[in-house]
Structures are given as C-alpha cells and as structure tokens.
C-alpha cells in the first residue's frame, strides 16, 4: 500500500475551566496519513506555540480537506522549515500536480532524497497554488508551454501481466 498524504483541519482548544470559561480555539491544517497522526501533530504545535498540552486540552473537530479540482494541473508553491544536521532552515519548493496531497508527498520524498531530511524534521509552513507567471523554478516553468511536445525516449519494455513482471528491466 502506497503512502498517501491527506490534508486535515484540526480544531482544538484548552478545556474550559472556571477561571477561563471560553478559551480561544485554534485551527491547524496538517498533512498526515490519518486522523490520529493529524491530532498528534496538532498537540505538537500547540505545545510549542501556545501554553496548551494534550492533557489540558481537547480536540473539537478533525475534518479532511479534499481536493477541489483534482482534474486540473496546478503549480504548487510549498514553504518548508526543516532541520538539517547543522541547523534549521527555510525553503521554498515548487511541485506540479493535480492535487495538493500529491504535491506534498513529492516534497517529502524530495526532502528525504536531496537533503536526507526525515518526515519528522520537515514542517510544511505554507502551501499555495501559484499562477504560471509567478513560478520561480525552471523545473516547473518548463511545462508552461501550450505547444509543448516531446518524444518518449529510452522506452523500456514493460509487462502488463503480473506473471511477466521482473525486478530489472534490461
């Protein structure tokens, strides 16, 4: 089963007490594989950013945010904060795709491969759909061509039957 990121909106607050009957509610948008991890990340950030712990707080709602237009290709801009071996850095990455969840998956994989950054040290700070004119990466802008045409080179024979499957395609 392939790893699939979903986007969740987690809303929570400190449990109301006599001294504080209506504590402020906080919302976190997080990418996780399931709700359990989404709630876990909610408390991770709440701990760090506010004086609220899971033991004195409550999660009010967890909703999955679905893709609005999965049949349209979009350019995603993703702002990241990650810990490298010697410090923590900000990054801006672009990904092209039909869904934000798919783009996020690509970004996590890219961070793992290019920077050896595991999932736990990568924080997605912000995500946005970028119009073509504002894309900064050549890897994204090279596809902004209405008359794009390229051949498929170095085609490997690929079987469509499981019985003919092989690990290495010579």
């Amino acid at each position: 089963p392939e790893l699939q990121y979903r986007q969740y909106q987690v809303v929570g607050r400190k449990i109301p007490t006599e001294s504080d009957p209506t504590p402020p509610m906080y919302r976190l948008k997080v990418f996780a594989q399931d709700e359990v991890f989404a709630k876990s990340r909610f408390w991770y950030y709440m701990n760090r950013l506010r004086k609220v712990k899971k033991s004195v707080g409550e999660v009010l709602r967890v909703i999955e945010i679905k893709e609005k237009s999965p049949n349209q290709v979009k350019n995603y801009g993703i702002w990241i904060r990650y810990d490298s071996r010697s410090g923590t850095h900000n990054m801006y990455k672009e990904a092209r795709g039909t869904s934000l969840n798919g783009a996020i998956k690509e970004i996590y994989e890219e961070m793992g491969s290019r920077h050896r950054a595991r999932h736990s040290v990568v924080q997605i700070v912000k995500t946005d759909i970028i119009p073509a004119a504002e894309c900064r990466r050549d890897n994204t802008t090279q596809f902004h061509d209405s008359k794009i045409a390229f051949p498929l080179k170095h085609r490997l024979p690929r079987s469509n039957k499981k019985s003919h499957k092989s690990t290495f395609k010579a």
Partner: protein
Amino acid sequence: RTSAILSKMVYKRFVEIGRVAFVSFGEDQGKLCAVVDIVDQNRALIDGPNIRRQAIGFKFLHLTGFVIQIGHGAGTTAVKKAWEKEGIEEKWQQSRWYKKLQMKATRRQLSDFDRFKLMKVKQRRSWLIKMEMGRLKKAQKK
C-alpha cells in the same frame, strides 16, 4: 510545429496536447485516451470517451499516430467533441495495431477444435502456395 520537427527528427510520435495514446497497463488497459495536459516529465493528465480523467504516467502510455485538436486543460466535453470530430474511433479500428490486438484476442480464445481447423487451413494454404511456386518454377525453366 510538429510537422517541422517530423521532417527532421528520428522520433515521429510526440507527447503533446491532444495526442491520442493507448493505455497499456492498469484497470483501463486497452483503452484510448488523449493527453489533455502535461503534469511533469513523468505524468500527463489524460481524458477520453471511455476513460476517467486522471493523471497517468508515461510509462503506461503507448502513443498512437493520432492527434486531436484541443486546448491545454480542455474539459471532458471538449475532448469528447474533438474526439468525434477527428473520428478517432473509426481511425483506430482501421489501424493495423487495433486489428492485431483483435487477432491476438481471438487466438487466445480458440478452442482445441478451432486450433485444429486453423492448422488444416494453414496446411491447405501452404499447399496452394507450393503448387503455384512449382508451376512458376517450371514455367521459368522453359
């Protein structure tokens, strides 16, 4: 643009907006689709009359020689219209590729008796060819 490239390049079939491709892998195996948009170097957004609009990898597409006229990111109805206008269904069914696929499918479904009949027919054909060859050789000797 494509025709200018065609005259010079080794490659004749290009991935472009409107290129009709054959899906060779997965649930939609055997269906035709059109490239509606390019996602990145590995994937295209495809759509077709019998196939759901989706992003699919180039690994699973075999390009045909047909192209339909659509704008990039065209909707499903626009793709369907262009498909019918170009007459892709008829063009496809007249192509050798399609006929070979049909032939392979028929052969796979032959019963033992059908295979026996096929053998007999092939024997008859090769006998006819040999007879005619013999006659031509004899005529040439004279």
